[in-house]
């Protein structure tokens, strides 16, 4: 059952893009759009958009890298662990909670490491997997999206996103305790 489900997931991802591309091009052609010319016209902006993001992404990724490499996170984890454990937050998942909004590749690393150490079907393994999918890499997403239109004043975007992260991670821990605990 679970095997066929992951098979379906794989099939969907491999079919989705070709089917979407065919639909766009075919419907365009039926409606008498000059498909090739339109495509090239739209595509020419790809370079500018991607290059515009560079300064924003350098700024945030460097700050996050310095923070992570300094060992400050280990200190924060040591300080937070005793306070959160009675609330049902296992100390083993704290690194994931702190790194998830900061770094996508970092979070994937923490997850794979944890799956190996505690087993993928253990409470910790299930919790780490759920936390991984419970939210996005907030800082990366904000830098890329706002960077692409050169917006520097992001107003309440970061607080709102971080509240979402906190809620998602908390719910992940809670629901895993209920379902897998």
């Amino acid at each position, binding site marked *: 059952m*679970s095997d066929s*489900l*992951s098979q379906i*997931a794989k099939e969907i991802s491999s079919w*989705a893009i070709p089917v979407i591309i065919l639909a766009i091009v075919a419907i*365009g052609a039926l409606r008498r759009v000059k498909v090739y010319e339109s*495509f*090239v*016209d739209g*595509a020419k*902006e*790809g*370079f500018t958009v*991607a290059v515009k993001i*560079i300064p924003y*992404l*350098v700024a945030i990724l*460097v*700050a996050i*890298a*310095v923070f*992570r*490499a*300094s*060992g*400050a996170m280990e200190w924060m984890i040591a300080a937070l662990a005793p306070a959160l454990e009675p609330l049902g937050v296992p100390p083993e998942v704290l690194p994931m909670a702190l790194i998830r909004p900061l770094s996508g590749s970092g979070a994937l690393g923490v*997850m*794979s490491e944890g*799956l190996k150490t505690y087993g*993928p*079907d253990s409470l910790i*393994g*299930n919790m780490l*997997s*759920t936390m991984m*999918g*419970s*939210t*996005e890499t907030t800082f990366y*997403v*904000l830098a890329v*999206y*706002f960077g*692409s*239109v050169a*917006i*520097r*004043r*992001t107003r309440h*975007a970061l*607080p*709102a*996103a971080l509240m*979402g*992260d*906190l809620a*998602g991670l908390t*719910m*992940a821990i809670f629901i895993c305790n209920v*379902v897998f605990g």
Partner: protein
Amino acid sequence: MMNWIWLGLLAVGIVTAAFTGRMEEITKAAFDAAKTAVELCIGLIGIMALWLGLMKIAEAGGLVQALARLMRPVMRRLFPDVPADHPAMGSMLSNIAANLLGLGNSATALGLKAMQDLQSLNPKKETATNAMVIFMAINTTAITIIPATVIGLRAAAGSAQPTSIIGTTLISCTTAMIVAVTTAKLLGRMRRFREVRDE
């Protein structure tokens, strides 16, 4: 806010490294991260061009508008400042759909197209609009129906039930999105975050 977080990450990082004796590590980490950032952006160029091209066809063929019309009641409530027939509605919906399907980079490319469309409605080009903040709240907590990467890694780690986390993940990321969007809506009304505020 971004100023303080950025300063905080750097200052805390460098001061901590002074105590833990990791000055060399953070130097290397900083240079590596700068390089990674550029590589990520360069990697985006191709897929950006591909989707911007396809979206041009989809707009000319009326596909994006049809999608926008379908979801109009929801979108108008979420984005009251965006005219219901504006192209931004269609491009935001394509991004959300791509996220739901778990199409990673393609979702990003479509999302950046949506940001450009939203920017065309922005009177102050360096300051985010309410609509952008709501759109970011949706994107920083992106819901995926089937978290394929996580399932793949679980299977690789020898899990007997790699897909067991689909339900718990869906509940968690839906919670995250509802809280993020609600917070964005509420904070948007606060004086401190007003749209027309000069800093």
